[in-house]
């Protein structure tokens, strides 16, 4: 762990060396490009899409692929490409917020558990056990039942599910740092639990948290798409890949292609983030690199 930090933090030369190694790593490069593509499309859609995603053109219903509609149109004559582009916004928003909820609350709990031990650790771990036993889609369903369907509520449901994931991971990683000599030295120097956590433990486990955040981002995109597909996620007129798939299924006999594009958008985004996460893990964990 310490070696990983040594590789990522000090000196411009070491940073350049790390970057050079990263740019030769196939998963990292492929994942990075796909993720940049996702973010780029989402940003572009904020200022420009070929058509207004929600605008209907009943004269151009089920239009085939053409120069005026690169991916055709749906049953209301809405431009599919514009909706795919705008759908990226929702996926990114869900991923970012859900992961932030998980990282801030979950990692705080994990760090607290590792620093305090005893009943605090026991409590945090039992809470994580419970949350793990409770499938994410079920908690999403229950939260939707109380708060009603909608994008914000599905983000909340996915975010809550992320808390125990990060709590467990952070506690395990933090515990391994707490047993190291430099922490012992810091304690001998009279530093308290909070200062040691912030100054020594957290910097040493950041890379582990970052890798997991990438993976959870991908899982959040999948979960949001599933909730929207089921009709308990984002609601119209918000463009959403999951709901596009739901609508496409009804039109399958008319135009099977409508079910292809949103699915590819989801799969490519998830693939990109997973590859990026795999690459980051290889690059930040020297133990794994040696095993290859």
């Amino acid at each position, binding site marked *: 762990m310490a070696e990983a930090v040594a590789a990522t933090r000090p000196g411009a030369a070491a940073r350049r060396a790390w970057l050079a190694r990263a740019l030769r790593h196939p998963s990292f490069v492929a994942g990075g490009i796909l993720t940049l593509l996702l973010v780029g499309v989402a940003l572009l859609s904020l200022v420009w899409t070929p058509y207004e995603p929600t605008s209907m053109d009943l004269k151009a219903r089920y239009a085939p692929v053409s120069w005026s509609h690169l991916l055709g149109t749906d049953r209301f004559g809405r431009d599919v490409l514009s909706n795919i582009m705008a759908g990226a916004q929702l996926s990114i928003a869900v991923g970012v917020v859900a992961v932030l909820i998980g990282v801030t609350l979950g990692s705080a709990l994990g760090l607290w558990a590792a620093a305090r031990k005893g009943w605090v650790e026991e409590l945090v771990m039992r809470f994580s056990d*419970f949350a793990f*036993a409770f499938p994410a889609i079920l908690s999403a369903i*229950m939260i939707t039942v109380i708060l009603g369907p909608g994008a914000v509520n599905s983000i909340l449901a996915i975010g809550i599910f992320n808390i125990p994931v990060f709590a467990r991971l952070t506690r395990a990683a933090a515990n391994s740092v707490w047993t190291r000599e430099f922490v012992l030295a810091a304690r001998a120097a009279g530093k308290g639990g909070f200062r040691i956590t912030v100054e020594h433990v957290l910097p040493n486990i950041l890379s582990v948290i970052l890798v997991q955040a990438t993976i959870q981002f991908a899982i959040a995109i999948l979960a949001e798409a599933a909730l929207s597909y089921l009709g308990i996620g984002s609601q119209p007129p918000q463009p959403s890949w999951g709901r596009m798939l739901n609508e496409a299924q009804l039109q399958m006999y008319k135009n*099977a292609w409508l*079910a292809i594009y949103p699915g590819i958008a989801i*799969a490519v985004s998830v693939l990109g983030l*997973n590859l990026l996460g795999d690459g980051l893990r290889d690059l930040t964990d020297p133990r794994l690199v040696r095993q290859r």
Partner: protein
Amino acid sequence: MSLFIAKRFATLVLTLVFTSAIVFTVMEILPGDPALLILGIDAPAEAVASLRSQLGLDRPPVERYLAWLGGIAAGEFGQSYTYQVPVWDLIGDRLAITLPLTLFAMVLAILAALAMGIYAAARHNRAGDLAVMTVSQVGISIPNFWLGILLISAFAVGLGWFSAGGFPGWGAGIGPALQALLLPAISLAVVQAAILARVTRSAMLEVMREDFVRTARAKGLSRRAVLWRHVVRNALIPVITITGLQFGFLLTGAIVVEQVFNLPGLGRLVFSAISDRDVEVVKNCVMLVAFLVIAINFAVDMLYAAIDPRLKAADA
């Protein structure tokens, strides 16, 4: 050993009680009065009040919570508000689709994952390995409900080999029933197979580095014999653990995939109960799914301890 089992069992019971408390609380917060829902909003106040007391809604929450737990312990799941039948009758029929679907998917996933994982590990760092890893990376990224839609559009709409959804019932014979479950099971299985293939491969590679494998090779056993007799056997331990964890994902995944294929399983029951605000059905379905997941994880823990005695020693 008995201390280990007792400890795990206590955790199991605690988790179940905690889960039930959360589920009950959530359903309490839920807006809407079931009595009004049954009778309609125009019902006279006295009728609503009498139905409320008949349903036990006028009793304090703690009392109703305990009554619910007691009921579950006695195998009594309460009455559905909308269907006016015992909840267990509803659940039983739906479970007869959801559970076979989950198990079917699990068998497919395990078979595919073992084949892919063992093949990849045996050809470590060669083309076959790379191909399996690429395929599994893509498999992990595909949403199960999308795969379901694609399978319907290819094999039902396009080729006409399968019906586009629905379930003929087990009464129609095991052949037609399994045929109706095949496409849903494949859509569920692909992601889990991809994950499990990676676990199998890395578990195999880990075991291959062990000294006893080198010894077995040194005493003259062929590569193939070592692979099957020593490596696969030892690599199965982590694979079993992950398979147990995956049961929960498959079960909840089934809830989603049932919607795609229009299967009248537990998922559809939950969703229609949610829109009908049928609290009794939602509460008991959610609790049942949580129970199944928790119980399977417990069983895997036990199995794991039976296979790997080190774990018992460390934990007890």
